[in-house]
């Protein structure tokens, strides 16, 4: 059924398209879905991705930028020469596909364990950290006047959000308390510069090929804020997938990441990056606890969610390694 709807939709803006084939859902909760499909065309099929909130789901929840904003950001990134899919079409109400957009499908790998271990990425791994530094700088430099409306965050507001969410779970975690206290006491205050922040720049949201990074995905958490946040988030140990001595995504060093970032003329504040790494570690821990809550209360009573709840202790050991390291 979705192939019929997509076929009619695509025919209205893609000259020569005669339908779509091979539609398959890649991921999705109740409110957001990602589909892959091929646009059928006489001169060869074209790979495409649909990202949408199905009909009946309007406003995006909580922190989400919204699908319209995501489409705008991806197109701006693409126009600026950053690795980003071209947005082919923004859904219209009369197409009855819900809200969202259709973009070019980019081939490559998003699964961190493969990127970190498979032979085909052996040449990409040593160059990735520096490359990603350049890409992050490019995102922070996107033209301010063309950016969509997004929430504005600061260290102080993020600490308050995390604390409120943690307290809502009503489950004592002395290590999280220690981290919250540490963050409050060392809050560096407002950033001297506020830019677009991707908000979820990490393994899993990057398409990697043997030649390096090919696309940045998932702009759902984009906002305005301290540009150092993106550099700290990609260093969080949870995204190193076992390669714990390579802080940038398990494949590179902070020095390489920072060098790539500064190639563009932008400046790194290493202390603020470290602050955001601690914040990010706590944030992922609290997100894991949130998964537990949704498992228990929500309609999604899945084993996966339940087991992610049991990963919050991973962030506790990482917080202790950051805040109270042991010798040896």
């Amino acid at each position: 059924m979705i192939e019929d709807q997509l076929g009619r939709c695509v025919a209205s803006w893609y000259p020569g398209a005669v339908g779509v084939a091979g539609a398959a859902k890649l991921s999705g909760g109740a409110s957001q879905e990602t589909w892959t499909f091929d646009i059928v065309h006489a001169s060869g099929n074209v790979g495409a991705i649909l990202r949408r909130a199905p009909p009946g789901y309007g406003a995006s929840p909580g922190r989400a930028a919204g699908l319209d904003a995501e489409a705008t950001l991806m197109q701006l990134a693409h126009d600026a020469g950053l690795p980003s899919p071209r947005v082919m079409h923004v859904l219209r109400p009369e197409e009855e596909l819900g809200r969202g957009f259709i973009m070019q499908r980019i081939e490559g790998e998003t699964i961190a364990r493969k990127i970190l271990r498979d032979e085909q990425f052996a040449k990409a791994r040593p160059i990735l950290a520096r490359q990603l530094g350049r890409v992050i700088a490019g995102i922070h430099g996107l033209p301010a006047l063309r950016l969509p409306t997004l929430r504005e965050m600061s260290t102080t507001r993020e600490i308050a959000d995390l604390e409120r969410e943690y307290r809502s779970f009503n489950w004592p975690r002395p290590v999280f308390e220690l981290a919250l206290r540490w963050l409050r006491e060392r809050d560096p205050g407002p950033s001297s510069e506020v830019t677009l922040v991707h908000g979820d720049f990490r393994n899993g949201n990057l398409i990697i090929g043997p030649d390096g990074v090919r696309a940045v995905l998932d702009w759902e958490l984009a906002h305005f804020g301290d540009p150092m946040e993106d550099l700290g988030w990609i260093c969080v140990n949870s995204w190193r997938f076992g390669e714990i001595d390579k802080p940038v995504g398990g494949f590179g060093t902070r020095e390489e990441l920072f060098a790539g970032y500064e190639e563009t003329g932008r400046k790194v504040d290493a202390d603020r990056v470290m602050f955001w790494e601690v914040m990010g570690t706590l944030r992922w821990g609290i997100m894991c606890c949130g998964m537990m809550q949704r498992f228990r209360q929500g309609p999604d009573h899945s084993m996966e969610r339940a087991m992610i709840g049991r990963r919050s202790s991973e962030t506790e050991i990482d917080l202790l390694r950051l805040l109270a390291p042991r010798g040896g």
Partner: protein
Amino acid sequence: MQDEPTPTELIKAVVDFLRNEIAPDIKGHNAFKLRVGINALDLVTRQLALADGSDAAELARLKQLLDADGSLIDLNRVLSEKIATGEVDLETPGLVEHLWQTTMDKLAVDQPNYASYKRELGKS
């Protein structure tokens, strides 16, 4: 008194069946979900084996650290409040050791293959 086999023995028998007989025949997303399910059952058996001992040791440490009596959850709430207010901090004798031991005991159940845990295990 409940009879044998024990919960641990029952779960292990189910896990062996799922892992050896079922998993090789399952493909796609259900193979991933089956792996998660097997991991969950393994976690439960680790908790059944380890939690009584680690909970008792944690409770004893909390009583000493806080000089107070109470249940594990209540004393964890008290400790959390004291850390939040700054009454207890990293300089407080025994706190760092307590948090490390408690966290290591959680990881031994939750994710004994987590790289940070394995690294820290080599230090103690």
